[in-house]
């Protein structure tokens, strides 16, 4: 990390420690996400169960990060960049915990879907979307570690692609449901899954914005590029 060292080495160790915890948590969340998409595609219930159990570790890490951050604030009275680091870390932990919950939800639904008939191409698309979102998380956390504003801005911009992917999936599921009402149940689940993955993407963007706040001292001014049109237009009529 390019920061200068504090005279008190214990302070440096505390800050590094809490950031390491965040990275660890991020790793767990990324793995959970990819594994959940894999479980969906390969209809692997055992893997899904494992992911659901693994969410406990993610929640425990969030609590540990909060305790550590509170301790740093109480004992070290951080200021300026150090203070923003601690606050950012707390917010990122909260965001990652939500992402972990979505991954858990994905795993839960994949178990249900494994009992139903497969919707052709859905699992693949979901997997591709999950991969893109996992990359978002990875890049957002990388931008935290490297204190890289450019990377964080890029993550923010790429959210539009995630939104496009979600739009496409939304239309596709709508089409499937209109074609054959027997698909409705499966497509509803798939739709929720896609929505959750899109929410994870939003959280990743939020993480990137927190990183920009940490580095520059203020949140980015321009609104994040939003391409999600599903809530503002009627896609059903366009068949």
């Amino acid at each position, binding site marked *: 990390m390019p920061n200068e060292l504090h*005279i008190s080495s214990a302070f440096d160790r505390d800050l590094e*420690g809490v950031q390491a915890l965040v990275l660890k948590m991020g790793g767990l969340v990324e793995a959970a996400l990819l594994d959940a998409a894999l479980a969906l595609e390969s209809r692997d219930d055992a893997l899904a169960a494992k992911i659901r159990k693994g969410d406990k570790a993610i929640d425990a890490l969030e609590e540990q990060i909060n305790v550590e951050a*509170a301790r740093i604030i*109480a*004992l*070290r009275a951080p200021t300026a960049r150090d203070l923003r680091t601690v606050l950012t870390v707390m917010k990122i932990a909260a965001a990652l915990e939500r992402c972990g919950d979505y991954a858990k939800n994905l795993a839960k639904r994949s178990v249900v879907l494994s009992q139903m008939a497969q919707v052709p191409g859905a699992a693949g698309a979901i997997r591709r979307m999950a991969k893109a979102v996992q990359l978002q998380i990875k890049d957002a956390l990388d931008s935290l570690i490297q204190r890289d504003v450019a990377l964080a801005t890029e993550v923010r911009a790429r959210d539009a692609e995630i939104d496009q992917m979600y739009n496409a999936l939304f239309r596709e599921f709508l089409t499937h449901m209109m074609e054959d009402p027997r698909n409705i149940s499966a497509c509803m689940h798939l739709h929720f899954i896609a929505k959750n993955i899109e929410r994870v993407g939003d959280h990743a963007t939020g993480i990137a914005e927190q990183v920009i706040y940490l580095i520059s001292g203020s949140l980015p001014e321009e609104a994040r590029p939003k391409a999600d049109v599903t809530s503002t237009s009627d896609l059903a009529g366009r068949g």
Partner: protein
Amino acid sequence: MDDLRIVERDVTTQIPKITARGVDVFYGDAHAIKSVDVDILDHTVTAFIGPSGCGKSTFLRCLNRMNDTIDICRVTGEILLDRENIYDPKVDSVQLRAKVGMVFQKPNPFPKSIYDNVAYGPKIHGLTRNKAELDAVVETSLRRAALWNEVKDRLQSPGTGLSGGQQQRLCIARAIATSPEVLLMDEPCSALDPIATAQVEELIDTLRSQFCVVIVTHSMQQAARVSQRTAFFHLGTLVEFGETGQIFTQPQDPRTESYISGRIG
């Protein structure tokens, strides 16, 4: 990574170095310290905090019998260092002070050379046999006090010619030159600027591996930064004593909470 931190933060030994039981201190008729019981652990930094006049400095000075120099001061109760009562009539306070070193609030180097400052203690206690050994002791002490690199070329220049932070580190080097087992520090940073303070605090953190350190400070933030155990004194009584992180995030006694959050004192 976090395992390392947790190990560091924990005290590495639970063996008490100094045990105080029922200690009362009277200045004439004034009852300054009221029945204090405390266990100070080895290889740990213990901080005494509290508002002005709460008795923390008085109690600290009991630990090396510096209160003996004040005629009207009377100490009752038991203070055990390695299970030996230091107020036993057989104990010579001069010998005690070679084992329990002290650093004071205002840096007070002797008006001699830097070398002589550090060498004085070992010389009068006869700890070295020849000049080579004395040189070695001086160098080790200055290195441990993080001062060697700054003064190694001018050991013969007067100790009073150093800056405030350097003088205080010189006093620390002087105190550790007699290889004490306990280091008492009475508000060591109160006369220093923030950078010098941070350097001394970092030094105290490294000294912990060799000594038992007890530090009195009127800055709660300093106690938070530097200690593993904190004792809160108020009006002569020991109100609360525990692990530092615990004291500053979840104090048990409401008086402690009031003091720490700036509501009293």
